[in-house]
């Protein structure tokens, strides 16, 4: 079994969770992963983590693959109205899948979809103890989290404090 993928990890050192989340969504690497998705290359998963330093990080994993581009269109000049019409006309895009307007439309849709998913997915909160790193979900199963934190060597008092903060 061998799987190859690209792990893109970015850190967003902001004390403000909302700012950090917005930066995750706006990052060029998010755009890149969305473009891969629009090109038929799968996104394996993505996550955000809240850490002490920096305050936030984002990971997106994209499967290794190949994207094929076959531009197939005549040079043309079109009006603003026609550009706007084609951008919202999915039937036109389906009939002209290799036109730059179709590429733009798909990439923008994928970017919006990925950005929304990153913003809405609950982040993991990181707690380190020696060689262990616990990545815990906000609002997760407290009993399971207690077991993991115990395995990592946190004291009962520390565990109670951590779980009450999640």
């Amino acid at each position, binding site marked *: *079994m*061998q*799987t*190859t*993928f*690209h*792990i*893109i*990890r970015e850190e967003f050192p902001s004390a403000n969770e909302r700012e950090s989340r917005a930066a995750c969504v706006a990052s060029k690497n998010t755009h890149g992963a*969305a473009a891969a*998705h*629009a090109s*038929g290359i799968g*996104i*394996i*998963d993505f*996550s955000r*983590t809240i850490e002490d330093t920096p305050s936030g*990080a984002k*990971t997106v*994993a994209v499967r*290794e693959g190949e994207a094929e581009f076959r531009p197939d269109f005549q040079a043309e000049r079109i009006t603003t109205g026609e550009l706007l019409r084609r951008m919202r006309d*999915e039937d036109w*895009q*389906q009939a002209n*899948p290799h036109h730059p307007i*179709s590429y733009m*439309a*798909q990439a923008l*849709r*994928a970017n919006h*979809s*990925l950005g929304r*998913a990153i913003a*809405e*997915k*609950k*982040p*993991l909160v990181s707690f380190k103890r020696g*060689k*262990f*790193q*616990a*990545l*815990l*979900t906000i609002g*997760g*199963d407290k009993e*399971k*989290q207690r*077991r*993991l934190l115990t*395995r*990592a060597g946190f004291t009962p008092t520390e565990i109670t404090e951590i779980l009450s903060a999640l």
Partner: protein
Amino acid sequence: MGPADIGITEASDTLVQSVDIEQKLSEVVRQDKDGKFAMAQAFDPEISGSIKVLGTTGDAVGGDLVTALASVAAGVTIVKEKTHATTQDNFDETDLSFVNFPGAS
């Protein structure tokens, strides 16, 4: 038309138990214009390693294993082997061995 919307998978609690990595650097020894050896240049770093991740739910390659891997293996990563077992105390334990090329694109 186009790819499907990107859905949200549930994050799952994860404990990174151990990480073992070994970094290799290819080196080139250059000669300067006088034929003397110049400073060696290190490039194409390659990290071989393994990571042991404990979870409370089953997982495939992906999921929060990727988050666990990302702290040591961002870049192009080849997961070479993955074993998955349930421990006696009822955790899901996953061992991954990987090769990582942090500078590759």
